């Protein structure tokens, strides 16, 4: 089954992806992120046609705890975050620490 890429974020963030042909996007203005970002992410997560969700790393801080956890742990669709040094998409670092017992991403960020 073929799927698509979805982008969630401010209009400035999504415009570039739309230039590359991404047609599934959720524009949430910076001032409205606290109120509307959760709903946008939940809606995209529920869409079976979406295989990859692209978000800015800083936007994850606007999500509620449950939505953030579900988007970070989601395998289909997979979340790929951009910006903020790229320590690994959403919560991956914590997951590595928990599973392996040591912080393998430590070197990368120093």
């Amino acid at each position: 089954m073929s799927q698509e890429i979805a982008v969630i974020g401010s209009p400035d963030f999504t415009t570039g992806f739309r230039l590359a042909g991404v047609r599934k996007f959720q524009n949430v203005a910076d001032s409205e992120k606290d109120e509307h970002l959760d709903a946008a992410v939940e809606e995209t997560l529920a869409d079976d046609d979406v295989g990859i969700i692209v978000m800015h790393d800083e936007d994850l801080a606007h999500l509620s705890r449950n939505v953030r956890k579900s988007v970070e742990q989601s395998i289909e669709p997979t979340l790929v975050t951009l910006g903020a040094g790229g320590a690994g998409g959403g919560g991956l670092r914590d997951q590595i620490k928990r599973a392996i017992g040591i912080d393998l991403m430590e070197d990368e960020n120093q």
Partner: protein
Amino acid sequence: MAEDVKPTRKNLMEIEDRIELSERGHDTLEQKRDGLIMEFMDILDQAQDVRSGLSDDYERAQHKINMARAMEGDVAVRGAAAALKEYPEITTQSKNIMGVVVPQIESSRVKKSIDQRGYGLLGSSARIDEAADAYEELLESIILAAEVETAMKKMLHEIETTKRRVNALEFKVLPDLYEGQEYIEQKLEEQEREEIFRMKKIKAKKEEEEKEAKEADKAAAKEPGTATAD
């Protein structure tokens, strides 16, 4: 827990069988966990390369779109973005790494030529084309990152599950079984000692009874003799 087990030979044999199975399972799961961690380390190296490439691509794409916005105006860029007709698609296949099914993502229509973009040659400028190019490259990196990061997430989930199973066997199941085994062995030894003691007591009682019977017989045998002598 150990006190719940009935101290019988049958239960002892059952516990010994379970210990053997659990020890074998523990060793196998430990090997699986170590194997998964080694596979994960390979994927992690790959992921770190992909991540650094992704950051570079994102920075370049941002730079290009900012340039396009500055030169052509935000409205022109948004207009070009809204005109796109061809959209990138991804198809997912799977491969198996030590029992963990990880995805292999294939993409189509990510890189497009100018005439495939839909906004027309006259309606755009070179800067918008460059920005679109940069974002198409970024999308390719994102697809690669998604593939690697999904594999990482799945591997981590499997490592966590295996680790939990190993720990449960090592710190809960096996100690409980050893405790149960020790309890039954002690109880059976105690029963054996009691049995030996009881047998000894019975034997001593029997010997005493036999001795008394013999003495009584002797006494009875002596009685008529004494009577004759009198």
